[in-house]
């Protein structure tokens, strides 16, 4: 089972480099020395049982919490201490596990607000047009995500699956170099999962951004990702291509097999 996009193995200086990250909560070592790299244009999956430290890792990478030890480098620059605002300005986008669209704004406005702060200064934005010139970009994403028919509705009125699509689209509006997707398939109708996978592959191909994806849906991860990292109890068990991971005995024992 080879996939066309996996033939173009991303190379080059890493977009994201995490070195020996550690974070403990009291006596619990949530993340105990994790290191990995994400290459430009790569889709990097992170899997592991609940409690393996994936969410803590994510939150550290996204500036919600500061790690006890370790370094996070984005495009060669140390961003370990940066908060979510700073990281977004430097080119990191994310989606959340729980739906976080702005329910009272239209879908289109949700997309516009997702990128408007990257244009001009607060002061200049006072005089900018309502859509900050992002109307065309928003429309393009709306078409790509096939949500044209609900674009004018308030985001809160959409179905869960549609809101999820808006959520993902918002992360891409500011054209970040790195997008972190936290369980993009959670709670989504199985019939929509394939669509999300296709969307992400398209976005990856056309925008050359790197993605880091946490997911529990194995088929989804194996199909989508160039490389996968398996975490167990706060440590990295294995990093490799889907084939390597699938045939890794340790991983099978610890996680996949049973």
């Amino acid at each position, binding site marked *: 089972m080879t996939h066309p996009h996996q033939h173009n193995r991303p190379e080059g200086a890493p977009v994201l480099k995490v070195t020996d990250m550690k974070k403990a909560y009291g006596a619990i070592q949530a993340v105990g020395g994790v290191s990995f790299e994400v290459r430009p244009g790569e889709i990097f999956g992170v899997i592991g049982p609940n409690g393996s430290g994936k969410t803590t890792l994510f939150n550290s990478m996204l500036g919600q919490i500061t790690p006890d030890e370790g370094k996070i480098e984005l495009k060669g620059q140390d961003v370990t201490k940066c908060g979510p*605002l700073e990281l977004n300005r430097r080119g990191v986008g994310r989606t959340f596990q729980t739906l976080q669209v702005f329910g009272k704004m239209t879908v289109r406005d949700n997309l*516009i*607000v997702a990128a408007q*702060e990257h244009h001009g200064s*607060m002061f200049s934005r006072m005089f900018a047009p309502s859509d900050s010139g992002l109307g065309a970009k928003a429309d393009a994403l709306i078409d790509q995500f096939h949500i044209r028919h609900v674009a004018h509705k308030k985001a809160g009125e959409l179905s869960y699956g549609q809101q999820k699509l808006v959520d993902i689209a918002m992360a891409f509006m500011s054209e970040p170099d790195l997008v972190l997707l936290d369980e993009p398939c959670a709670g989504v109708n199985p019939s929509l999962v394939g669509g999300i996978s296709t969307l992400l592959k398209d976005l990856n191909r056309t925008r050359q951004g790197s993605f880091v994806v946490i997911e529990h849906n194995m088929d989804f991860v194996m199909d989508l990702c160039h490389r996968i990292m398996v975490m167990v109890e706060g440590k990295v068990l294995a990093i490799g291509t889907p084939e390597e991971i699938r045939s890794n005995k340790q991983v099978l024992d610890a996680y996949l097999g049973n």
Partner: protein
Amino acid sequence: MKKLNLFITLAVLAVFLVVPSFLKNYGIHIFTTWLVFIIATMGLNLTVGYAGQKSLGHAAFFGIGAYTVAILLKAGFSFWLGLPVAALICFFTGLALGFPALRVQTIYLAFATLGFNTALWLVMRNEEWLTGGTFGINNIARPSLGGISFDGNLAYYYLVLVFTVVLALLLWGLLRSPWGKAFTALRDNAIRAESLGIDTRGYTLLSFAIGAVYAGIAGGLYASQVQFIDPALFTVGASIMMYLMVVVGGPGYFLGPVLGSAVGVVLPEWLRFAQAWYLFIFGAAVVMLMIWLPDGLLSIPDRIAARRASREASAARAAAAKAAQGVQA
């Protein structure tokens, strides 16, 4: 802007333009006060309704504006200097008040703004050398511009109306710009907003500062209108009334302050016929209003639309079920 909204706005404007010329001094006074509170609550609506902050100390800025203008007028300066100075002082004080908002969560923020209001009220009451203490400041002059004197109540009313319209247009422009969406994002989900690059700290501070400026200008206009001010006008009770006006009118609705101020300023006057019972009716009316319309008076159109949408949805579902039955049969 939808045609209906435009029509309503113009109708409201027409009322404000035409009606007072038929009223006597007392009626003009009510209308002028109504406008003053529209300005003040427009500012509070920005802070509380659009940006989702908690502010129970708005009357403090109203007071800073009033006292600044009154003191400067008494010292011989022009009204047209006093008002901008008041606005500036309120801007920076509002910014300063925004800082606790960054550190402190919702309910405690409300308390902090209350504390700020009471602190300021204490200063107004005790610093006689500056504010006249409990005696207040009287004989506050009316302004003049070019050759026009605004000593007459009707003339002053129209001046205040000009201010109201200009300030409303400025606010409208601000909310239509990207700032409007940024405020909504800040209000509805600050954490998500931050992850999208929205400077929640900056917008929070500015929502307080701009809200304060509006209250300050309103206060300055009020000082010249009533020509006598004392600390009793700027208590926590006054702040709570302004908060009430914003919530009753409809937080986050642009014309909410018009209705809310009507409820707070005009309604008690209408109820005077009920004599001793008028405040009871007012209080009961507020309770009923909140239970019936928790999102404020201006949420009525949205509710009607929502009810129609859900009726259409259940009708569609019923039709689909019928069709399915038809197929099965």
